[in-house]
């Protein structure tokens, strides 16, 4: 069991990294990676939302959609649940934890409708063969950690390339995309490790 959880998490963080090998969540990956602090904030917000959404989406899918035979509506139902949950969460944070709210607050609504969140819910709950809820939850959190890892790595590289002497035509987004591509290549090296 422990080994399964570990291998699921390793797969989600490294070898099947959400950004670098599945190409989901590219928008915040490129948009919020200019500064290390905002990149980390975004990463933690993603982990947070992924963990919460996996719980509720799993409940919804297994106890409402499957018994009624309408699994094909999972995408719509997941969007609905995730969007409302994040709204609710924002209110709760604002009321009870202003510190956490000011740290995550800006990024929470940004990721509500992000494809990475929905993609993770879909791939861990609908299209996977995970039997227990524990595995689904572990995979979701690990996917968020994978996002945090990827965005923080990119932010670190971008801090260097911003000050580096590079050709004018490469400045800004071109060099960022080249960086992301090389990072994706590096992550591709993990393919097949601990699979299954």
């Amino acid at each position, binding site marked *: 069991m422990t080994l399964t959880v570990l291998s699921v998490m390793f797969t989600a963080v490294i070898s099947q990294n959400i950004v670098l090998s599945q190409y989901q969540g590219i928008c915040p990956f490129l948009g919020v990676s200019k500064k290390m602090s905002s990149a980390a904030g975004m990463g933690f917000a993603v982990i947070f939302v992924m963990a919460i959404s996996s719980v509720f989406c799993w409940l*919804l899918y297994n106890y*409402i*959609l499957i018994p*009624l*035979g*309408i699994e094909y*509506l999972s995408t*719509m*139902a997941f969007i*609905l*649940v995730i969007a*409302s949950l994040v*709204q*609710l969460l924002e*209110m*709760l944070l*604002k*009321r009870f934890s202003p510190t956490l709210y000011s740290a995550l607050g800006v990024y929470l609504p940004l990721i509500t409708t992000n494809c990475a969140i929905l993609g993770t819910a879909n791939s861990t709950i609908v299209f996977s063969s995970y039997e227990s809820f524990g595995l689904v939850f572990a995979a979701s959190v690990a996917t968020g950690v994978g996002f945090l890892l990827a965005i923080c790595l990119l932010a670190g590289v971008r801090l260097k390339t911003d000050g580096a002497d590079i050709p004018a035509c490469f400045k800004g987004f071109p060099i960022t995309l080249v960086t992301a591509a090389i990072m994706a290549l590096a992550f591709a090296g993990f393919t097949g490790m601990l699979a299954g």
Partner: protein
Amino acid sequence: MEYVISVLIAGGVMLAIAVIFGTILVVCSHLLAVRRDERIDAVENLLAKSNCGGCGRAGCAQFAEALVKGEAKLSDCRATPAANKEKIAALLGGGEVGEETVAVVHCSGGGACYDKYDYQGYGDCASCELIAGGVKACPVGCIGKKTCVGSCAYGAVSVGDEGYSVVDKEKCVSCGACIADCPKGIISRIPKSAKVFVGCSNHGKGKDVMELCKRGCIGCGICAKNCPAGAIEMKDGLPEIDYSKCTGCMTCVHKCPRKCMREH
């Protein structure tokens, strides 16, 4: 019939989920509403809303909050018109309003100031300053490469034909962005109502200044001697104007042999 039922079930379930979550959100937004001082919004509406950051806070919303809590002074904000400040002061029960100010560039050199070298870069004042302290012979002469023009969010600063920066006092909100960015440090605030200002920052001796610039202040003191209100005093080679005494008679502007005492 079967199809109709399955469509109804699907639609009904989605609608039910939506209604449930909608209700929860509405209820929670009422239950969890964060109560905040109503005066904060009122004050924020009266502020300039320029979000210039001149007060040292992130924006007008944060400044309004600090004002209400008593952590900030009304005079820290320079962008808000005096009339609105008085309303805010009344709302909060007192507080110094502060005088309305604008920024001016204390240099009249430009083309009149000699160049040390032929600058061929494409940078602004800040990068020009790195090469032997700028292209101008005068160490405190306006370089005229528009760093201040770029830092002004209100389009109030421009570089005219004379080659030095000029602030449009009608557009300026006195946020201080140009003051912080000018590598020469020759921009400062004066009262908006001021009629004249000193268009030079060079404290040097007359002969030295003459070698640098055709319009630099030589410290002759003619303005101070001729001022009927006694508002001008010579300090360290430059005139200093006491705006509380200045009547705006323009005697100094007409008498200045170097044309660096300028009309505002």
